[in-house]
């Protein structure tokens, strides 16, 4: 063996060894959801909700500041995407201007005694970005606590407002619950039941009844929020509980009039757990607030106990429970009693613990794949690919004899390199991926056929064996490069535009085309050269 051949052999062996490292044992190969079974979600963060939430927050803050700084008559409300504060006389604009320092993301405009605040474009973008980031973090938290092995959570979309969640091994049955966990923001607020609520927090039976009571106009600074009827409660009251069809709004027990002002925000929760009340044997949620939250809650309980009013616990704009408060409560440890089932309590606590999203999510796409379908697909896909592969090998050996064997060796190296490259990219094998695998094998043979046909042609022109091999490879080199590049172009475009199974397909193709370039040009040539070395001056070539 010459030095050159030896080096080539070492190089080839090294490459094959390195590639084998990535897929031996076979359990290292990652299967896509369509083969393994699992749940796939694509969600979109509703960024405008984050903007609206910020507007509401700004309205409350602005009003507080105005009252503090000598505008006791000021009232503020939302109008479209702006906050309008009335009761700021034109001659006191300079004073009001000072307050506005705290609202840097807003443009302010005065007209008459009205101050209008609107969000700056840059501020809106940062709010949305923040909502996206936070949504992803929270999904991660919630999924992790739900206990799914190897979840994949990846942001996509041009604006980064899409999130793809892939949960292998999760069945159709768990899908609904996870969906519920992902879609609801989990925003907890504690507010006061409005003074004008004559029902004392029990609420009106329908929205119309409540609106009728106030003659169509709710008192300023208040809003009507629904209090859903829970399953347990319905059972306790002996009513037939009609579980809402999944996705339908929950049945509503009553409508409660609450103040718009949020006293305690869920963002200040540090710990939340479902607990069982030892006396009533019912599920409750206990949570602990941080310093700021504890102070806020101390204030809130102060007002409630002095004015003999009730506190409304609001989760995602629904009243969860209405509490009496007899005294000021320091320390920030809060317990919500309600009519929860175990699952409700678990999920409630989980949402509080993981924090609130700035905006809710919309489901664009959801798929649940049973594992047995995947197993069937693998079986038939692999069967089809294998039969195809064997036919090609059979054809090559039959048509090109020993040169065909050369091609088969090159093909084997090709497959090893492909698997290795895919493993090193942590690529996932999907069903179209299996098809792509088989097809690239077919295309890899193409390159060999081109070379062999050329060699045959050169032999026919009267060239020696060595000369024919030399010119054959040289002449075909650019043809092979050109044809591979065009394929690579479409493979790469597939990768850019595709998701999920298609991406898997694209990766297989890209990798396959690259591997085929290497094996057809390098490995096949190496085998010929090596054989020529051992049989110098041979006059015939089995081709």
């Amino acid at each position, binding site marked *: 063996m010459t030095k050159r051949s030896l080096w080539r052999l070492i190089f080839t062996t090294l490459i094959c060894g390195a590639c084998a490292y990535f897929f031996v044992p076979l359990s290292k190969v990652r299967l896509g959801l369509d083969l393994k079974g699992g749940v796939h979600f694509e969600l979109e963060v509703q960024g405008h909700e984050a903007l609206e939430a910020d507007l509401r927050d700004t309205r409350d803050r602005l009003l507080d500041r105005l009252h503090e700084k000598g505008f006791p008559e000021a009232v503020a409300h939302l109008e479209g995407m702006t906050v309008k504060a009335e009761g700021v006389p034109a001659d006191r604009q300079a004073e009001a201007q000072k307050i506005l320092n705290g609202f840097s993301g807003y443009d302010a405009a005065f007209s008459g005694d009205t101050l209008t605040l609107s969000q700056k474009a840059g501020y809106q973008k940062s709010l949305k970005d923040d909502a996206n980031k936070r949504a992803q973090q929270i999904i991660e938290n919630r999924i992790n606590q739900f206990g799914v092995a190897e979840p994949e959570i990846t942001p996509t979309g041009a604006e980064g407002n899409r999130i793809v969640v892939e949960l292998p091994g999760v069945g159709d*049955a768990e899908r609904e619950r996870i969906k519920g966990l992902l879609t609801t923001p989990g925003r907890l607020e504690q507010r006061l039941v409005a003074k004008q609520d004559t029902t004392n927090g029990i609420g009106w039976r329908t929205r119309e009844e409540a609106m009728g009571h106030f003659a169509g106009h709710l008192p300023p600074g208040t809003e009507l929020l629904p209090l859903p009827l829970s399953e347990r409660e319905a059972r306790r009251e002996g009513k037939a509980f009609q579980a809402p069809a999944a996705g339908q709004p929950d049945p509503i027990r009553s409508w409660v009039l609450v103040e718009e002002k949020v006293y305690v925000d869920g963002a200040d929760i540090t710990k939340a757990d479902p607990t069982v009340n030892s006396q009533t044997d019912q599920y409750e949620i206990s949570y602990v607030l941080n310093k700021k939250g504890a102070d806020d809650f101390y204030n809130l309980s102060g007002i409630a106990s002095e004015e003999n009013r009730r506190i409304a616990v609001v989760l995602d704009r629904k009243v969860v429970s209405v509490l009496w408060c007899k005294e000021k409560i320091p320390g920030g440890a809060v317990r919500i009693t309600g009519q929860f089932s175990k699952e409700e309590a678990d999920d409630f606590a989980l949402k509080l613990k993981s924090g609130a999203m700035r905006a809710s999510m919309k489901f664009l796409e959801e*798929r649940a794949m049973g594992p047995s379908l995947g197993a069937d697909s693998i079986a038939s896909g692999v069967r089809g690919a294998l*039969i195809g592969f064997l036919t090609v090998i059979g054809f090559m050996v039959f048509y090109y004899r020993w040169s065909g064997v050369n091609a088969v060796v090159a093909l084997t190296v090709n497959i090893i390199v492909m698997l290795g490259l895919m493993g090193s990219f942590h690529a996932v094998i999907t069903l179209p991926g299996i*098809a792509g695998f088989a097809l690239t*094998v077919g295309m890899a*043979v193409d390159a060999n056929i081109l070379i062999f046909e050329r060699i045959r042609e050169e032999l026919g022109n009267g060239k020696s064996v060595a000369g024919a091999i030399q010119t054959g490879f040289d002449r075909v080199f650019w043809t092979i490069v050109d044809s591979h590049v065009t*394929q690579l172009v479409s493979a790469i475009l597939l990768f850019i535009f595709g998701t999920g199974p298609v991406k898997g397909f694209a990766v297989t193709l890209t990798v396959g085309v690259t591997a085929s370039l290497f094996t057809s040009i390098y490995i096949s040539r190496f085998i010929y050269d090596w054989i020529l070395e051992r049989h110098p001056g041979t006059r015939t070539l089995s081709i």
Partner: protein
Amino acid sequence: MKYSKVALILSWGVILACLLWIHPWKGADAHVKLGMQFTGGIDMMVAFKGNVHQEDVRNALYAGGVQQAAVVAYQDKPGVAMFSIKVKARKGQDEKDSTSQIKQITDALKSLDAKAASDHRLDLNTESVGAIVDTWMKANPLGVQGDETALRLAYEPWVDKVIKAREKASPMSDYNQLPSDLPGSLRASLEKDYRLGNLTILKNESFSPSISGEWTWKTLSAVGWALVAILVYVLFRFTLSFSVGGIVALIHDVLMALGLFVLFGFEFSVPVVASFLILIGYSMADTIVVFDRIRENSHKPEYRRVDIVKLVDDSINQTLSRTILTSMSVLFVAVCLFVWGGHALRDLAFPLVVGVITGTYSSIFIASPVVVFLDHQFGGKEKLKQHA
């Protein structure tokens, strides 16, 4: 070149006929079957053990209030009937509707389970891991001491085993199919609390209509960009007339595969579009083999004075065997995938089977005549030599 006119008329005629039949300009009424990913809607795959017919499923769905469902039956394994159920989304529908629709469909399907009416136990074939763990943690048939975590640790491995057995049997028809090393008390608990239903939900997908338009756009732009990128590459490696010839051949192949794909009643899905993109890449690769030889021959002294028609004709003849052979190897694979790859791969393999055949044919009969024609018009043969 002799047959090029006949070929040109014939193949474009076939394409035109296909397009006329599909009439894509009629929008929603076109003969095109689009997957749910494009239209938005629900795509489910279910399996029934025993004798359930397509009509039964359709009637059950109709009775359950799902009128717009398209039901297709498959028979993969003896004794198991598989159905694909598709429901298109209405305009302006949001994800809440789809969730309730899915529930409606599953409820309708469950009503086909004759035993379910008399047997109210949970169905072991459709219950989740969590539900079974919960059953055991409550009943605690093994008498495990300790708190919830200890219980969970004790029962979860067994549930996994049961689920694995269920996947293998898919669906289970006999309690004997439970893992043989399952402790007797656990087995007894399952036999007491669970029945073995005959319905399995294999796949359950739903796509929001709001994302569907985006998918169509994304897909079309992928195809468009692929064409442009290839055009530019060939322009860079050859000349404009080759580039145009190649693209015309490409469009021919794609249209032909598209026409036949629709004609044979296959349905577009995202993987199918992927296979069309592969077809684009492959068909061009095939054309390049011929182009390459034309370019090589144009340098040879014996072709210096001859007409471009002879140059192209000879080049085609010289490469004929390899063009056909290379196509054969890919065709073998594509046909094997089509025949044995299962119905999931069938849709994907079909455009490739057509595409590989037309790709070979178009390299010879479409691309080359276009090159000759353009060459006559603009005199590109001399340019070609400078280029290579």
